[in-house]
């Protein structure tokens, strides 16, 4: 990887003073060992009028590998996530930042013993980086990061492969920064912002890099309009360390076996920063700063992320005024469960355990079994619910287990109620009958509450392009008629009755954003002798339940005018 720093000058301030500032003689070719390879410093030009210093880092792939290893918690060498075909030797990433700091340490600190007056002087600088990796917005992001610091930014995207123009641009830009700044500041900007631009996921960063960031950011980071983004990006690199927990490696290998990215498979729960404030007080300030940014400002769409999470927030960012849709969903589910009086409840597809937590707050509920297929979701849920710190009595009310709803599961039998909250739409339609059988046929709880998006409502999400699903992993989204037809067929087939209710603001045209079906096991006949006329029971019960649902609808929390308004805008 390569960077060049040029300046111009005149007789009284010759450009070649750059050599003093950098502590590197313009007429020498020097080499410096760094953690990831050898850095070479040389001057393509050096004169009174112009002077250019160049740093060429020859990355040692073996060193890169050594650092890549042992990053799992067990410290065992695991090769799955170390990419051998890697842009690190070429792209200006954090490796270059580290090299800059190693080679130009004094310059970065603004020290120059021979010419103490030089560091304080702003110089006309031109910095050229032929390949800067940018995650997200590309040139626009580069502009947002460097322009506020006084740089004139020219960022040109590099095409991926001219043989395949349909592949578009790569994530690299050719970057040219010009401006009149002190050299120390310029170097610090590069040191902090190159890794932030890169946002690489599988690259190792030592914990003390955080301290280095704070030190390097002194004097300019605090006032930067994008400081929150910078902090978040920086921290997200640290979170990437936690991504390497053992349970994820197995998933990553399966992705690799299929020529896919790990994130494409292991996307059951979003990568969240929940650990940061807990584990590292030094980052608290920056983290808090990052957290205060409303989610709408997220600079990039999260692959497989949820449009709803963004869209359900009112546009003015005043989250305090109304309940999020997720929370309204929980309220509706809890109310439905309360009507059945269920004490032993299954949360099927419990994700990060939000509903499990809410259920545990209900004194009526004596036992919650949370089931999810994602080991990572369960790990996060256990941490969020603080299972390890619960009292024995509390802990005995809850269990989290891995399970898959396309398989029958003996552990799920005998419960009062099961909840499938935003779960069915994550299954491919052809696999849905397997879930139906596993839940309604085999586990057979007395009541089942199912929620799923109402696809008709999608036109009301501003941020959702037409025809798109709300979540990257949704395999389908149903209209109200489709959901009703499905639920009635399931109820019919398995001897349940079903009633429906809307969740969230009801739009007169397209309904509510979420639809909820409440199934109840039709009274089991206790006698083995022939019983006549069992059929009408279902219909009658369904009618009663439907009537109840209609009654519910009139005073549901979803009539909040604020929400109505935001959704209709």
């Amino acid at each position, binding site marked *: 990887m390569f960077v060049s720093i040029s300046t111009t000058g005149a007789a009284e301030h010759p450009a070649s003073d750059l050599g003093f500032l950098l502590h590197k003689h313009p007429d020498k070719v020097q080499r410096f060992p760094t953690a990831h390879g050898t850095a070479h410093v040389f001057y393509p030009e050096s004169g009174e009028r112009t002077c250019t210093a160049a740093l060429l880092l020859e990355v040692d792939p073996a060193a890169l590998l050594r650092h890549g290893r042992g990053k799992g918690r067990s410290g065992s060498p695991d090769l799955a996530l170390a990419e051998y075909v890697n842009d690190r030797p070429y792209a200006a990433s954090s490796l270059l930042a580290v090299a800059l700091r190693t080679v130009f340490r004094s310059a970065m600190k603004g020290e120059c013993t021979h010419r103490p007056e030089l560091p304080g002087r702003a110089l006309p600088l031109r910095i050229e980086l032929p390949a800067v990796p940018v995650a997200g917005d590309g040139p626009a992001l580069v502009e947002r990061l460097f322009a506020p610091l006084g740089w004139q930014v020219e960022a040109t995207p590099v*095409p991926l492969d001219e043989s395949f123009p349909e592949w578009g641009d790569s994530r690299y830009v050719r970057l040219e920064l010009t401006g009149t700044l002190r050299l120390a500041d310029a170097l610090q900007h590069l040191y902090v912002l190159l890794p932030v631009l890169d946002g690489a996921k599988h690259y190792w960063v030592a914990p003390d890099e955080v301290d280095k960031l704070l030190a390097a950011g002194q004097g300019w980071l605090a006032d930067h309009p994008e400081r929150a983004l910078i902090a978040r990006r920086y921290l997200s690199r640290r979170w990437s360390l936690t991504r390497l927990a053992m349970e994820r490696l197995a998933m990553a290998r399966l992705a690799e*076996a299929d020529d896919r990215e790990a994130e494409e498979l292991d996307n059951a729960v979003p990568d969240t920063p929940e650990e940061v404030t807990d584990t590292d007080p030094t980052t608290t300030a920056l983290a808090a700063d990052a957290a205060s940014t409303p989610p709408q400002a997220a600079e990039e769409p999260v692959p497989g992320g949820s449009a709803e999470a963004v869209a359900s927030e009112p546009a003015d960012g005043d989250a305090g005024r109304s309940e999020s849709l997720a929370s309204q969903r929980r309220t509706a589910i809890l109310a439905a469960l309360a009507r059945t009086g269920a004490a032993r409840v299954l949360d099927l597809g419990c994700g990060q355990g939000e509903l499990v937590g809410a259920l545990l707050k209900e004194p009526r509920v004596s036992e919650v079994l949370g089931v999810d297929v994602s080991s990572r979701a369960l790990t996060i849920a256990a941490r969020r619910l603080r299972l390890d710190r619960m009292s024995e009595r509390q802990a005995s009310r809850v269990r989290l287990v891995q399970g898959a709803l396309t398989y029958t599961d003996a552990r799920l039998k005998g419960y009062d109620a099961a909840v499938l909250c935003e779960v069915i739409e994550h299954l491919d339609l052809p696999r849905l009958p397997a879930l139906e059988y596993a839940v309604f046929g085999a586990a057979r709880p007395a009541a089942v509450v199912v929620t799923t998006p109402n696809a008709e409502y999608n036109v009301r999400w501003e941020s959702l392009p037409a025809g798109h699903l709300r979540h990257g992993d949704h395999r389908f989204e149903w209209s109200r008629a489709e959901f009703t037809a499905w639920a009635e067929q399931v109820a019919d087939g398995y001897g349940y009755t079903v009633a429906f209710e809307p969740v969230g603001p009801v739009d007169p045209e397209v309904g509510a954003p979420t639809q909820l079906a409440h199934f109840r096991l039709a009274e089991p006949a206790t006698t083995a002798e022939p019983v006549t006329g069992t059929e009408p029971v279902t219909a009658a019960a369904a009618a009663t339940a439907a009537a109840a649902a209609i009654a519910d609808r009139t005073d549901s929390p979803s009539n909040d005018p604020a929400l109505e308004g935001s959704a209709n805008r």
Partner: protein
Amino acid sequence: MTTETPEVGTPESGTPRARRLPVTDVSLVVLIGSTGSGKSTFARKHFLPTQVISSDYCRGLVSDDENDQSASADAFDVLHYIVGKRLAAGRLTVVDATNVQQDARRALVAIAREHHVLPIAIVLDVPGEVCAERNRARPDRQLPPHVIPRHQRDLRRSLRGLEREGFRKVHVLRGVEEIERAEIVPEKRYNDLRHLTGPFDIVGDIHGCRSELETLLGRLGYALVRDEQGRAVDAAHPEGRTAVFVGDLVDRGPDTPGVLRLVMGMVESGHALCVPGNHENKLGRWMGGRKVTVSHGLQESIDQLSAESDEFRARVREFMRGLVSHYLLDGGALVVCHAGLPERFHGRASGKVRSHALYGDTTGETDEYGLPVRYPWAEEYRGRALVVYGHTPVPVASFLNNTICLDTGCVFGGSLTALRYPEREIVAVPAEQEWYEPVRPLRADAPGGREGRPLDLADVAGRRVVETARLGNVAVREENAAAALEVMSRFALDPRLLAYLPPTMAPSPTSRREGFLEHPEEAFLAYRHDGMRQVICEEKHMGSRAVVLAARDDAALDRRFGLPGPGAIWTRTGRAFLSDEQLTGAILDRLRSAAERAGLFEELGTGWLLLDAELMPWSLKAVELLRRQYAAVGAAAGAALPAAIDALAAAAARGLDVAELTDRQQERAADALAFTEAYRRYCWPTEGLDGIRLAPFQLLAAEGANLALRPHTEHLDLIDRLVAADRQQAEEAGAAQVLHRTGRMLVDTEDESSVAAAVAWWEELTGAGGEGVVVKPVEAPHRDATGRLGQPGLKVRGREYLRIIYGPDYTRQLDRLKQRSLGHKRSLALREYALGLEALDRLAAGEPLWRVHEAVFAVLALESEPVDPRL
């Protein structure tokens, strides 16, 4: 059932004859006697040490002191736990504790019942003085003086009530001498006919349909024996086959006495076995004078039997009384009973077992006809034994999880069905008429049925060991199963279709040649070393692995896999290869019509084909990976290196010595370019079918056949015909060919010129940008020199291709890279290969879905093991 031996209670003082104590082979033997009565000595003498669980030993386990009475409660918990585990596993177990108190025995009887084995009491009644004397001789056991008299009192009090407490055999041994002379005689269970190996013809529910029964027996090859009135009284098979009746011979139909006469005759002459159905049970109770509700066709039997002689009725009554609820046959591989039986009940004896065997289990609900809803035990059945039963009328007998229901509702106008065993052939004769009107229409399917061929989490989750025919037990670790579960349940196709996942393949041993990481000569050498002369080199296409299931028509797929459709194409992890169903359909359609044209369906006698293939271009599936990783690296290198080289040129012009540095950058730039060239070869645009190339290289399975066991030369011949057929149809339609040939060369590993020719071919292929070759023994599977399963193939990848794997300038790090270790990869490749073959074996044998899925799932789980991904 016999309750006790004739000797019980008969004093035999002075007789030198040994007391013979019958003990059922699977039972719980409870020794009863006061301390010092010699129980431990008796147990040691007659039973294996592992069969005897003593309370003293358990006391020691929990307290480090065998005599610590304060630890008794915990000690008995442990004892009960061990006893329970042993009984669950069907092992004879002896409890060595005083057991003189009823409470202690009650717990043991309950455990025996819970596991459906007979509790047997053996009482050692020894005079108190003898016990006291023995205890005095044991320095470790200082008992208070009142203990032995109390034990003696408790024992006396117990003696009379032991049978009432539930002991099915009670043996009382009085005095030291009788104990000395006692002899244990192992006894088989009534239901244990494992020594009978058949062959059998198992016949479903008859319900008085004598005429159909006679026809069926005739169809099965039995010769009927008739009495002077022309009534069938016996039937024998010339080849000595045995008929087995699953019960419900009686009621509803036109001639219950006729059926009974024939079946009883066959059973008495040893030509048949018979288990009782619920209808026999009720009729038997009625005949025994018990009060029963006359319903469900019992009236017909009563009326018909009243016309028979008293003698005949007495014979029927006796026959009914002697019926055993179920039989274990053929070494335990076959279980026959009336209403089905879960594995834990096989060969067991208890009221519950009998009840399940006769009536089955119900969910407690009733259906819309008011009939009890049957508990779908067969769906959950995972046993090795084939369970053949009847009881629930179904339109067609079909296998579900190694069980089959033979009640095809003959009396309701359906058919009378028999299963030939071990042939597993169904023979059925239609009913002559509807003899009895059914309360509800016949169910559309066997219990569980089509929807209900569900897989259970217990089939796949957690640490598992999968038995394979070729590599013994293959273990799957819990964390790997967890990852596989997530991928399988969230992304994979319906497991019914997913009969196979391709195993990973090891590379050839690392080349010793300068400049090469892999070279074919190492692969040839390795096989030669294993004694394999005949190997085949197959061109390795660089696309993405695809397993293809192609059906001849929608119905054919439905018949075999329970899902209609044209078939499916999936990736190494079981995902649909293409999200575009239409395109999938188009590819399958080409394959199907090619197979039709080439006559493959006919020739292989199948309605579907399962193939292993490579689907190209690579960019079709991996475009995201290409863009994010491969092309990106090329782009970054292409942007960065020229800038550095320009700067170096400027520095050189200033007279700085950067020659060496410049050379290196130029080399790196050339490597990066070579890298870009390497991946570009595997990318091209596609539009619909245009540009798509499918290169099948192995036929995996067809109906009833694991084709992966055939030599590779045969595979390639068949596939060549497919490809030729596709070429023809493409030419006719003026379209591009979709199926493509796999280049190959046969090599004799001991013939230098043959090896040299193959090396030259590899050089040519890889020189032109090919990925490389796979070297496979022609005969598969093969055993290596030590008799172990050998590697099914070794990949030898081209020098340029490897840049995609090891990085653009890997050739400059060969010394380091050659240190690579292949052990784990080779082991993984073998295990996955054995599992893959196992899945195909199981599929071919028509084994239950869960058995096939177990092996397929294990392949996926192993894929998540940590192995250097570059290998």
